[in-house]
């Protein structure tokens, strides 16, 4: 299990290949990448996080996934700082003997990461003015999504 929090861009494809090559006996690899959308004239976003707690929270979520499903490995990488539209914000990867576990675990990781890992996004419009920047509001749907996982997996 690996959890990485960094400001720098990462090569998602290279990470995926390394992750896949490191598995033994895993028939299924699922990845999710979150990408900055340029909707509504977004120029860039700033991602703030809580150093220390971020790594703890991501590790706890990954550990929970590994307890619920039969997984060979889990990778979580999440950026912070300034990101432009089209940039990859984060990625999760799961390896499992069977595809249902790999899919469910990746889906679970995303739902929990969104609502339980301490990241906050601030969006800057094209004029870049700080006074026009707005914090992204959490969606009720994101919190509601967690209820899907009550009793899911080997719990």
């Amino acid at each position, binding site marked *: 299990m690996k959890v990485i929090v960094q400001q720098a861009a990462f090569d998602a494809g290279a990470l995926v290949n390394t992750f896949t090559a490191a598995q033994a006996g895993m028939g299924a690899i699922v990845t999710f990448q*979150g990408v900055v959308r340029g909707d509504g004239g977004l120029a860039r976003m700033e*991602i*703030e*996080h*809580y150093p*220390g*707690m971020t790594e*703890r*929270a991501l590790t706890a979520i990954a550990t929970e996934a590994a307890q619920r499903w039969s997984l060979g490995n889990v990778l979580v990488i*999440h950026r912070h700082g300034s990101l432009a539209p089209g940039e990859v*914000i*984060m990625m999760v990867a799961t390896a499992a003997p069977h595809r249902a576990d790999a899919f469910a675990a990746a889906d679970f990781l*995303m739902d929990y*990461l*969104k*609502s*339980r*890992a*301490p*990241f*906050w*996004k*601030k969006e800057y419009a094209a004029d870049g003015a700080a006074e026009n920047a707005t*914090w*992204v*509001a*959490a969606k009720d749907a994101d*919190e509601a999504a967690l209820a899907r996982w009550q009793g899911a997996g080997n719990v």
Partner: protein
Amino acid sequence: MMIDVLYFAWVRERIGLPRERVTTEAATVADLVAELIQREDRYAAAFAEVTALRVAVDQVLTGFDAPLSGAREVAFFPPMTGG
């Protein structure tokens, strides 16, 4: 006791600083919030809608009724928006 109090996102912006060391005898997170609100308007503004906030004690998410006994670090922030 001395506790490091951290603020993130718009809570940080309203209070105007990312962290501070607070001397308090507050028994719970809610008691600490009540003390902070007394200090200055900017704290009152930040904690006006406490139900819209999340709190972590020693880097673990918890509720506002959580005890502070032995805590070293308390953080306040809006709901997370990662991913």
